[in-house]
């Protein structure tokens, strides 16, 4: 099929090798992931699942259960909010340390900090990478083991993971705004914190707030999921009801979760619209 001379398709070989590579990787991928759609259709599995799903209607709406549901929902919201505020406490100083925007040595080097400045910044950056690269639910599991079941584990897990994310993004925002006001202040001898407050923060505040609100929305989803390892909130209740095969309860809780996510989405859009 490959014609010779100038008519030879230069993309043929790369495409062929890429397809072969894909096939070569697909096989172990399929066997390792044990993918088998047929299992879903097997008799007893469908029967169990059918029973469970059939119990979804009507969703549980007893008074006592609704009270429990309301408490769990409020707990989820509280975990997300408290976690975010702790995350801010870590992220703000960390981002100031990690950002190049306030480098004194960069002043007379055309914006490039000296090597020892970079050396000081890297540990903070690596710290932030580690914080955000371990999934929040792993942190939650660790904290459940360390401080026991309940919402404090969820709050700490969100605080840690989101501190990593916020810190990195804040540092990037500081570096992306116009550096001249801060440089002028630093050059005239102001302390760094003053240079930050007067030179960088006014330009960066809107973007920071918008990103923080967006992350808060993500934290709500995360706090639901973290309940599955015992970190409190709606997720813990969903896990419990699922273990008891209470389809109706699972259905009402999933609906509540959907409502919560939708509300957070709207609120976050509203806040970001006002702040931006």
């Amino acid at each position, binding site marked *: 099929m490959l014609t010779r001379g100038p008519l030879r398709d230069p993309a043929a070989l790369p495409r062929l090798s890429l397809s072969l590579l894909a096939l070569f990787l697909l096989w*172990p991928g399929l066997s390792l*992931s044990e993918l*088998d759609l047929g*299992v879903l259709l097997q008799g007893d599995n469908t029967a169990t699942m059918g029973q469970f799903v059939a119990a979804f209607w009507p969703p549980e709406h007893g008074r006592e259960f609704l009270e429990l549901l309301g408490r769990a929902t409020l707990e989820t919201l509280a975990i997300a909010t408290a976690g975010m505020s702790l995350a801010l406490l870590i992220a703000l100083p960390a981002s100031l340390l990690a950002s190049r925007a306030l480098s004194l040595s960069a002043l007379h080097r055309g914006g490039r900090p000296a090597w020892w400045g970079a050396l000081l910044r890297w540990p903070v950056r690596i710290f932030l*990478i580690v914080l955000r690269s371990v999934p929040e639910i792993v942190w939650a*599991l660790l904290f459940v*083991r360390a401080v026991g079941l309940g919402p404090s584990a969820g709050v700490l897990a969100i605080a840690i993971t989101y501190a990593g994310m916020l810190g990195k993004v804040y540092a990037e925002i500081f570096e992306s705004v116009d550096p001249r006001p801060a440089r002028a202040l630093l050059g005239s001898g102001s302390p760094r914190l003053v240079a930050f407050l007067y030179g960088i923060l006014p330009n960066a505040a809107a973007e920071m707030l918008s990103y923080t609100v967006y992350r808060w929305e993500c934290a709500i989803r995360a706090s639901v999921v973290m309940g*599955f390892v015992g970190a409190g909130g709606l997720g813990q209740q969903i896990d419990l009801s699922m273990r008891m095969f209470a389809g109706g309860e699972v259905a009402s809780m999933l609906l509540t979760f959907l409502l919560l996510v939708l509300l957070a989405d709207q609120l976050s859009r509203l806040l970001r619209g006002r702040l931006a």
Partner: protein
Amino acid sequence: MSNALLLLGLLAAVTASFAWLEIDFGALFGADSLRQMGDYASGFLSPDFSPAHLLAIGRGALETLAMSAIGTLLAALLGLLLALPASGRCGLPANAAARLLLNALRAIPELVWAALMVLAAGLGPNAGTLALALHTAGVLGRLFAEALENIPGEPAEAVRLAGGGRVAAFCYGTLPGVWPQLLAYTLYRWENNIRMASVLGFVGAGGLGQMLYLSLSLFQEAQAATVILAMLSLVLGVDALSGWGRHRWVWN
């Protein structure tokens, strides 16, 4: 004025949250509790690098990688299949139905899907792969549908006018315009799914998460530390690979 109110509201929300949770920070960060946490954390400082454990972790990591990759691949296929009606190519009723399905798939988190799939398909990586595929199909399907809606229709119309069939017109007129975007979305989701795949094991859906859950339940901190290190390197590795892929195929 209204900004001050907003700030006040935020402060009130934060205070109310801490009050509602009744977290006793005095006890949490008290000397006793800190010592206890320190003892627990010190168990993680000497990760277990014995060959047998590393071998098990290697297998778990490969399983996680396979789950995330196959799950994302399935999701991309299913998402594209649903994005076609959801972008209004097959009439209004199909459009509404596809959108509803995509929203439902997307709204339920991966971990809940995993718990459901463990019920439906039994323990193991199969359940995790299916859970990832279902949730991600919802996410990707919506993004794909948006991409398909925004692509100009003339190239496909030109193929139709030269007598080509619908499938040919889609493949020659529409797909070349959108596939860099589809690929970029898929790679982004893969980065996300490798994180999820490593924790779906907490509900019994295979991969590194199952190992971590097990070792933490048995108070084997040294083994757990190695698993966490493996997760970390897996996440960073996939981020790098996906970034390279995006650079190579999407922006060039």
